[in-house]
């Protein structure tokens, strides 16, 4: 009796969702962030629903199985525009972004009320290494440091420390591809000593990102500059939102996303920028670390290059932009701080260009070389630049490494455009959201 009462109460809680960010799943997650009653959490242990948003390449299915098995009972899985794993063929699959929040909530409620069973465990219940009863002490090996107690070897000092002279144990782990603070798909083999990154070897490049279709159209025929610039600003705002969420600024992250959602040439960035500066984001959170030299900055391209002082922007080759008196903004320092300053400056510039271009009804003219928000697209699309971080992150403290990573845009550009209906569709919760706010 008491239990059923408890589960009825639990069914009314907001839905804790752990998102696995697959290929092209970001847009749906941005919308979920703004949906009331859904909470995107950072650890699978804090979730009742595993949402696989977007496709996952077959070679990463093992990693997906591991994440799947890390959710505590009871939990359900939901596949958004993604093929469920073979073992979970009967799992719920959703393709319509509008239906996603509703399906999530129903799944959570059914789970709590006991109408839906928990998703089955996929991996065998075995320790990573057999250990019980082996060796001197029954701990899987001999000696103080030998063996595999509880199924895993002990940490040893393998690398000399790179900062002070104390060489202590280093921890080597593979991270990703579904770690929420890394870019989607990025996987790496990382050695840490203390909370300092000793070495970082990128194993899986981040998933290619899909740009809005207007950028692909711009490669084929002239498009309105206003549209192009708004799409650019939207892209940067969404990246900013991710970094702000990471920095614990939930409020500004949401503001940034909302701004992106309702972006028009009349949108203004000043409010967001003022709040960012006032709350100390540039002083307390971003650091002067993560510095890219000229070669590395050129490899990454785009914002990172201009933040490092390279005046490279393909827009200056376009005659239409020339009529708008476009000159690229640049920063000189090339560190995390400079990259965010650059991003903000570029959003502002894009909004201003969009206003001007709309007034004058300008179309882009050059189609051979366009500047995407990710970087220059001349001969070929901006490629994967995740190799850069292998040199950049060693020596950084974990928090610095994550902040640096968030400030870098490394993924390649996909050849497919982002799904249009998804981006332009009205957010389902918007009206209800405002009503809720008033009531609270």
């Amino acid at each position, binding site marked *: 009796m008491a239990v059923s009462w408890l589960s009825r109460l639990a069914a009314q809680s907001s839905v804790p969702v752990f998102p696995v960010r697959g290929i092209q799943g970001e847009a749906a997650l941005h919308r979920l962030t703004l949906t*009331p009653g859904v909470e995107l*959490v950072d650890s699978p*242990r804090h979730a009742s629903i595993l949402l696989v948003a977007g496709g996952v390449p077959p070679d990463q299915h093992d990693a997906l199985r591991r994440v799947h098995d890390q959710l505590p009972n009871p939990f359900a899985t939901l596949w958004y525009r993604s093929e469920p794993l073979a073992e979970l063929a009967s799992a719920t699959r959703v393709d319509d972004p509008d239906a996603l929040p509703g399906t999530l909530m129903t799944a959570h409620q059914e789970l709590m009320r006991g109408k839906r069973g928990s998703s089955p465990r996929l991996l065998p219940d075995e320790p990573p290494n057999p250990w019980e009863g082996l060796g001197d002490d029954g701990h899987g090996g001999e000696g103080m440091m030998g063996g595999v107690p509880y199924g895993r070897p002990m940490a040893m000092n393998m690398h000399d420390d790179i900062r002070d002279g104390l060489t202590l144990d280093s*921890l080597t782990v593979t991270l990703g591809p579904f770690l929420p603070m890394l870019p989607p798909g990025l996987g790496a083999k990382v050695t840490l000593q203390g909370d300092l990154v000793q070495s970082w070897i990128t194993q899986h490049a981040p998933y290619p990102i899909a740009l809005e279709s207007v950028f692909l159209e711009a490669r084929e025929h002239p498009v309105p500059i206003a549209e192009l610039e708004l799409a650019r600003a939207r892209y940067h705002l969404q990246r900013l939102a991710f970094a702000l969420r990471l920095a*614990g600024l*939930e409020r500004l992250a949401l503001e940034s996303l909302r701004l992106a959602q309702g972006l028009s040439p009349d949108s203004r960035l000043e409010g967001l920028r003022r709040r960012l500066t006032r709350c100390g984001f540039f002083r307390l959170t971003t*650091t002067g670390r993560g510095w890219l030299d000229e070669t590395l900055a050129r490899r990454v391209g785009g914002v990172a290059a201009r933040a490092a002082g390279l005046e490279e922007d393909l827009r200056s080759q376009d005659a239409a932009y020339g009529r708008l008196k476009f000159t690229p903004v640049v920063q000189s320092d090339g560190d995390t701080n400079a990259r965010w300053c650059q991003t903000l400056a570029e959003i502002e510039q894009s909004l201003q260009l969009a206003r001007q271009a709309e007034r004058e009804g300008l179309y882009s003219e050059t189609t051979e070389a366009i500047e995407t928000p990710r970087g220059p697209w001349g001969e070929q699309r901006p490629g994967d630049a995740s190799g850069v971080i292998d040199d950049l992150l060693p020596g950084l403290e974990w928090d610095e490494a*994550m902040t640096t990573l968030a400030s870098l845009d490394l993924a390649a550009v996909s050849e497919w455009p982002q799904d249009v209906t998804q981006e332009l569709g009205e957010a389902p919760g918007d009206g209800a959201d405002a009503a*809720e706010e008033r009531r609270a």
Partner: protein
Amino acid sequence: MIVNELILPVILVTIVLVVGAYLVAVIDGMIAAALGTPQRGGAWLAPLTQGAWLLTQQANATEAPDWRAWRLAPALYLALAATGLAVVPFSPTLIPTDLVTSVVLWGSVEALATVVIFLHGWSANTLLALIGAYRYVALGLSYILISMFVLIGVALPAESLQFSQVVASQEGLWNVIRQPLGLPLFLIVGLGMTFWGPFNLADSRDLAGGTASTVSGPSRLVWELARAAMLVAFSGVAASAFLGGWLGPWLPGPLWVMLKMLGVLAVLLLLGRLLPRVQPERCVTLMWVVLLPLSFVDLIWAGVEALL
């Protein structure tokens, strides 16, 4: 006598702790909604449904945790919060633990909180929790000196290390006005103690939840409850040290204490939502090089003021 000195205070502390922790969640939800976080359902029900969900969720384990320490840490953190609340005088007579050195006892609660939070992250035996634990220790060992200086500042005019005397010494003028630097510095300590908002170095997002990243179900419920309870205890101490505790016209003393606690809570929760997380290395430097000297200034101010 037993009723007045034993049963009443025990019940009072328990109720204030539990109701206070609930109110922390409610106020935080309201602030979040006011700042634009989309919310479904009322702020009043949300903590209860969340708690119910955690109770029905399975408690997670790790491969080889330090079981006892892992389960004990949240409970001990809650117990520390209760101890902190016990030193708060609710009225001249209604004081759960009126130790002669209750100010120092609160200092020990702060120091022991660091130990407990470390233990919570350490005993899980996973990378992210471990980093969170160690990172928190850097913060915990930095704020403790600031807190001590600020509290010694309020002890000077009272000529006592007893919170009831500290409150009594504010009869004429509250310490928040008499020692203007004190309360802001102390609030920073409060955010640090509960790793809330800008000082959330233990359970931060960049560690996927840090020390709490591997706990789920009832254990996580106790941990979050204890964290909220610690905020309540802290606000009680701040209210008596700086806002004149039970002093105030018209209303009875205990009511004043609770109103002031609510005020401090609201400020803390708002700060937690408005400020970004401070980068750990910068946080330590900030504490030692900026805030600690400021607390020296506060102490000198308090000393000169007490002698005049």
